[in-house]
């Protein structure tokens, strides 16, 4: 089973499926896309979803002294700035003040928050943590980034498998026969190289956002490819066909990039107002790619990756973290608004990942340190809004707290369950899901229920 994974699900290698016209595949009548927003550095989820109930907030401030704007000390969100969630699934909780627009969408049922999710191989708690299987390299950025992007831990040989994004796409391809003459924009990153989309058998498109892709001396080289396409040598013929395809398609890509009047571009830009950031740029590129998917000959299932850095907030966290979430609030709202204007709100789901959460208590530098469990956000028209997972009991000797540190909360929901819920929405059935996420069977609830179908 393990070795089969590296060549695709169920014995089909991704490369052979490239050739299939999908004669035995199910037909696909709709379009869906997943957009992964990776927060590099370890996002402090406990300052983004936090107590809105007075007594719980007081307890929170005892661990995280309130932020004082004059002295620039403290990391706790002041009580009067917490945006209360209210309603049946958020009575005592609220959002960080930066999440103004995300709160509005929460009210409309478009936002799910998955509480206390993190990298796990199997369920663990305080008393059995040291004897059960757990992710290795727990507080190391690189290792935990990889584990969250693979949904595999390296104690199981995870430094070797393809990313779960690539595995999901490969399984969808096996099921629906998405790739016919070659793979266009099936997996696209505007956030740089990443393991989530990495596969030894299929390339993802790592594209600079909103920039053209050019080939030199096209006037001279195009005839060469034409000669190669009629060669009797199979490698020469295949290379010529592929290059011709990329060059032709880059024309479509470049005209998309040059079109500043498309509805999606306009809706995004208008909604964002004057605000811009790397994240805005990347999500704008995703909107335009989705909008132009027919011209780009993209398949009916796409996975996109965007990323933000700066979340490793050991020092002077409050302002940095607030600004980062302000960017997420603004850019995600522009993104979802643009999708709504294209009538595609229910077909695209944006979700966050980060390598780990951060310590319950503030450190000596007005920041927080590496920990484990955190909260993640899922947004879009197909989301079944609300709170998922469960709150942690943070009393120092509770089963939810690590035996080696009272600042570290043990996740009660696994990255596998989180990812499998998203993959199920994209169209994978339980058999596919168990093949793509081998550790999923260690958990009682394979689908967390935060997506409509």
């Amino acid at each position, binding site marked *: 089973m*393990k*070795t089969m994974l*590296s*060549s695709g699900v169920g014995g089909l*290698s991704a*490369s052979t499926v*490239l*050739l299939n016209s999908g004669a035995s595949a199910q037909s696909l009548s709709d379009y869906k896309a997943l957009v992964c927003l990776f927060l590099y550095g370890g996002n402090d989820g406990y300052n983004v979803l936090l107590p809105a109930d007075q007594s719980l907030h007081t307890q929170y401030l005892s661990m995280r002294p309130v932020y004082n704007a004059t002295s620039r000390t403290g990391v706790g969100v002041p009580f009067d700035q917490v945006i209360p969630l209210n309603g049946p699934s958020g009575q005592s909780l609220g959002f960080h003040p930066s999440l103004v627009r995300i709160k509005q969408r929460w009210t409309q049922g478009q936002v799910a928050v998955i509480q206390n999710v993190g990298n796990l191989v199997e369920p663990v708690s305080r008393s059995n943590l040291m004897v059960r299987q757990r992710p*290795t390299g727990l507080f190391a950025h*690189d*290792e935990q980034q*990889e584990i969250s992007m693979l949904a595999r831990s*390296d*104690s*199981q*040989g*995870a*430094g*070797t*498998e*393809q990313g779960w994004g690539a595995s999901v796409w490969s399984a969808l391809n096996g099921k629906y026969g998405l790739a016919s*003459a*070659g793979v266009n924009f099936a997996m696209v990153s505007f956030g740089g*190289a990443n*393991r989530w989309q*990495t596969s*030894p*058998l299929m*390339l*993802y*498109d*790592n*594209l*600079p956002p909103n920039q053209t*892709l*050019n*080939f*030199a*001396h096209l006037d*001279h*080289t195009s*005839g*060469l*490819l034409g*000669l*190669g396409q009629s*060669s009797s*040598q*199979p*490698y*020469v013929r*295949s*290379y*010529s*066909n*592929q*290059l011709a395809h*990329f060059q032709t*398609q*880059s024309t479509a890509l470049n005209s998309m990039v040059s079109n500043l009047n498309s509805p999606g571009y306009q809706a995004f830009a208008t909604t964002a107002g004057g605000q811009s950031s790397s994240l805005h740029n990347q999500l704008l590129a995703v909107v335009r790619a989705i909008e132009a998917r027919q011209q780009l000959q993209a398949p009916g299932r796409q996975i996109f990756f965007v990323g933000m850095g700066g979340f490793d907030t050991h020092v002077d966290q409050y302002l940095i973290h607030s600004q980062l979430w302000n960017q997420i609030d603004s850019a995600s709202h522009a993104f979802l608004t643009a999708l709504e204007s294209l009538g595609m709100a229910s077909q695209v789901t944006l979700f966050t990942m980060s390598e780990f959460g951060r310590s319950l208590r503030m450190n000596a530098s007005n920041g927080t340190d590496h920990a484990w469990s955190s909260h993640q956000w899922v947004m879009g028209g197909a989301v079944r809004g609300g709170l998922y997972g469960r709150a942690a009991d943070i009393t120092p000797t509770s089963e939810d707290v690590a035996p080696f540190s009272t600042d570290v909360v043990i996740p009660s929901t696994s990255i596998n369950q989180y990812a499998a819920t998203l993959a199920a929405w994209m169209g994978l059935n339980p058999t596919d899901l168990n093949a793509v996420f081998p550790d999923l069977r260690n958990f009682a609830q394979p689908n967390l229920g935060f997506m409509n179908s």
Partner: protein
Amino acid sequence: MDSWNRCKAVLLLLACVLLTACGGSGGTEGRANADSDDGTIAGLLAAPITEAQAVRFLWKSSFGPTTESIARLRQLGYARFVDEQLAMPAGVYSDYMLGYIAPTNVAAVEPREAYCAQFPTETMTACTYWAYWTNSGPSTNFFKSALTDSDQLRLRVAWALSQILVVSNSLLPKEAYGMRLYQQMLRDQAFGNYKTLLERVSKSPLMGAYLNLDSSHKDAPNQNYARELLQLFSVGAFARNPDGTFKLGANGNRVENYTQEQVRDFSRALTGWRANQRWVRDMEPFGDAHDSGSKVLLNGASIPAGTSASQAMSLVLTNVTQHPSTAPNISRQLIQFLVTSHPSPAYVARVSRVFSSTGGDLRLVTRAILLDTEALNPPEQNGKLIEPVLFLTGLLRSVGFVSDGYALDQAASAMGQRPFAAPSVFNYYSPEFELPLSSRKLKAPQFALLGFQSTSAKSQWLNTLIYSDAIPAHSLMPKALATGTRLLWPDAWLDLAGSNPMGLVAMLDTRLTGGTLSANVKQYIATRVQTISGSSSSQKIERLRLAVFLIFSSPQFLVR
């Protein structure tokens, strides 16, 4: 299993080792294709070598043909040329400003500054960048060696081994020294014994960090290295015949080489090693961390209880090296890296037999790969797409150049093949990747790198390398090494460009591609060249540049 049977199993294992070390097969040592019944190989080896043939062979056995290497090969003939290359001692990757060893408390900056103070002509920023970050110095110096060092064939094999026994600078502490030492070890071992090589790899502190063997303890054996040792570095997931084809079970399915239980036992067998001095010393056994219980290996072999960490590792490596799947698995991949992506089963069988009859002698395996009819006189359907690293070094070596290697490091990175920076232990591409847009089911690993971004980048970099008068040295490159990169266009080529474009293209076809361009492609290129009128010196160089650009863009060149 009682103790007598355990003893028998160990004796049997040792007997197998002894027998193969004595060269149990009947084949003549190292003679390629000795059992072939068509006699062609003898003729190929004896006949004089044309310039075109020399060029084609050098694309397989070096990082690109030069005037000197073409002349040397034609003078010596294939066999003596190969033997001269096989006998050449390993060159050394430059270690200038690459000796920084980080202390174990990671954040210490002062020791880095103390190291860099040894180089007063370099800025602290440059030294820190060069000496510390894994993905600059070793990769750039690899290119420097590939471009100019004499042990070209050894470097090709070392580069191939680095794509099988992968260590990548992702997931590693950022210390350039470690990567340099690991790659130098591959270069030193490239013509040695495969089991010895696996032992060096298994004890490597860098590999120990990459695949978590370092400090793997009997209380919680880490499976990562054991699994990749089996899956990627030796037998492979599925059993192979000597000709590389998969063995099929009774139900027609492939046969798995090992079970999950065996992976666990291999993990247990490899516990108890730790790096004590990154990255200078091999890992050593530590404490009582080794699981000394009995374990089940492959093919009925086992490790009895009471063995030490060293004994266990030796038994493991003997077990996997001698397993019948290892010779075809490794031989086939080496053929793919040197000669062709889809060798015939008979070709694989010939090389595999040399591997198994010599206990994994990489020198003789390399010789068998290159001095084979399928390498010297390949069928038209054979081929491999030139990989980015070879594309870049070949351009410079073919024309003439000055380079410190850095521009090639940048270009290779944009094209998806930065040396020592594979995305995972599965390398940049899989040996099983199939040729797209074809029903032929041919293996074509390098095609896995083709995408919008990488092909656009290839086009842009080719343009930059050919059309720039000089690419300046990187500002953070050590001054003692920095020369920038530029091509040195031969005067004779410039003259021909001015006077005779068709003659230029014909000459370049021979000299750069080894005569692989068809007549209509040559005609096409000559026609394009002639759109530039040709008498002034600036026009001559523009003609020459366009000719070389078009040749290096031709599918018939790129598929070697």
